[in-house]
């Protein structure tokens, strides 16, 4: 076990990616994720890796398609407006079955929005990170250690299912500092990937990385095969954290930095006699539907707390399926909900503080 170090979330992601064998980072600076690129810029030349500041986000994501297609562990990162620019490339990567890791350190939107933290790209990440029938695995860390661990594992996940893993963080997670124990470095070889376009030396059929299919029937077959893989992921890769749900009457659903505020609120509410608990999705796609459906049989209500105008709440409603009321509380535009605000919502749902 290595000695703990003190890191920003953004740095932990970059260092952890390097330790996972990522030697190709393509990016473009944008607040509040610039430390990711800055960190790679310092480290990559010293370890024989490539850090490339592309001329735009669109160029960067297409470089990821190329590097990933050749079997390399490749990554890009950005913040909300930059991710919008990358969506075309993400769709091509999904259509080409290329693994890669993408990180979004969300800021306020829409448009240029602002540089303060936000979670308003939930819809984009989980429903339409690009055009076409597709999914990407969406991972939502809630602290610096988890940012390191999730990034480290994201490359394996991406390669296992040959698709992008999107790490959805927010400005707080990117900028905050916490002690972290970094994972052990590992070596990765492109030769382990029989599909990669990494040079056939006339010893095998050449591999093609492509998302264009002239025959609609062939395209349908490709997409269907991909959806079989998605079903596997929904079966095997769902991850979530439960906090004080055992005796809870009200379940808060919150992810990322917001879940930390929610935990403070739950502790305060419990002192007032309100039995609240938390389900924190760690995978936003696949979404932890089953635990919510199970809890819906037992608890009185759900409250989704988000840094947006109500996005994940739709998935909570689908999972709860009308069995219990699902409420929403959110702040947006770069404002972080406070524990006091969440407690006030819990009191309202509970019909005033319990005696």
């Amino acid at each position, binding site marked *: 076990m290595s000695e703990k170090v003190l890191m920003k979330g953004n740095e932990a992601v970059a260092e952890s990616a390097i330790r996972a064998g990522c030697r190709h980072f393509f990016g473009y600076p944008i607040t509040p994720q610039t430390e990711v690129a*800055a960190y790679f810029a*310092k480290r990559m030349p010293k370890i024989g890796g490539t850090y490339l500041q592309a001329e735009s986000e669109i160029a960067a994501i297409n470089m990821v398609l190329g590097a990933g297609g050749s079997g390399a562990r490749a990554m890009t990162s950005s913040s909300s407006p930059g991710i919008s620019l990358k969506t075309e490339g993400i769709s091509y990567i999904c259509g080409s079955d290329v693994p890669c890791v993408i990180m979004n350190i969300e800021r306020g939107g829409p448009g240029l929005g602002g540089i303060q933290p936000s979670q308003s790209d939930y819809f984009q990440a989980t429903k339409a990170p690009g055009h076409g029938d597709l999914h990407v695995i969406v991972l939502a860390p809630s602290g610096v250690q988890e940012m390191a661990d999730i990034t480290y594992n994201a490359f394996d996940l991406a390669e296992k299912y040959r698709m992008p893993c999107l790490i959805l963080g927010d400005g707080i997670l990117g900028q905050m500092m916490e002690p972290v124990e970094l994972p052990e470095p590992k070596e990765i070889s492109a030769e382990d990937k029989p599909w990669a376009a990494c040079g056939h030396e006339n010893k095998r059929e050449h591999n093609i990385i492509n998302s264009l299919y002239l025959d609609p029937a062939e395209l349908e077959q490709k997409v269907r095969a991909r959806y079989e893989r998605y079903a596997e992921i929904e079966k095997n890769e769902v991850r979530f954290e439960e906090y004080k749900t055992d005796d809870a009457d009200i379940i808060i659903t919150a992810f990322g930095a917001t879940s930390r505020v929610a935990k403070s609120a739950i502790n305060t509410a419990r002192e007032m006699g309100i039995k609240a608990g938390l389900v924190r999705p760690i995978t936003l796609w696949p979404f932890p539907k089953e635990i919510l459906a199970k809890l819906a049989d037992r608890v009185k209500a759900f409250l989704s707390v988000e840094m947006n105008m109500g996005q994940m709440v739709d998935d909570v409603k689908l999972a709860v399926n009308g069995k219990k009321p699902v409420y929403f509380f959110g702040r947006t535009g*770069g404002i*972080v909900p406070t*524990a006091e605000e969440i407690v006030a919502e819990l009191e309202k749902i509970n019909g005033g503080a319990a005696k």
Partner: protein
Amino acid sequence: MSIYVISGHYGSGKTNIAINLAYELLNKGTVAIFDLDVVNPYFRTADFTDRMRSDGISVIAPVFANTNLDTPALTGEFANIYSGVYDNVIVDVGGDDSGAFALGQYAEGIANSGDWNHWYVVNFLRTLTLTITDNIELMRDIENAGKLPFTGIVNNTNLGAETTPETVLRSEETAKELSRVSNLPLLFTSVAEGISVGNATTPIKRIRIATKRYW
């Protein structure tokens, strides 16, 4: 007039050192803290403006600090770093050489002001400043960008909330080594209140940790 310029790697704890120094200097006349950080969007001196102002410390920050704008605009007021308006001036510089670029335009005025100091703040538990080589390289980069040579080193090694006495004590030898190699005095090792470091071998300065918490 005394000027203290605080530089270092981003996340090394410059802002905490700057704020603590501001309170320490309050009994030596007027104190102004200039937030020169044009790099860091979230955790910065300007977070504590209201509290410091009510305690009698002048705070001068970039126009759009802590807003939704990513515009690093410094006002003309920053010329007061060396104008003599304040008895004690602290300049909280942005991290790394990229942050130190903003210092460059004031460096000549500072260097001609007489009593000036340029502190290099280091946390040896940050992954980009673990070794002596890392730090010497970064110090040169900052000096080149900020056009102001360092005059001393502050050892601010910590693990945030998980800092133990061992965290601090283990860093002392590295701090002394950096002092030897860079030929700069090790001014002090800063230690948060409540962490007992009785057997320290470097000068210890107690600091209060000012952090912004969301939860």
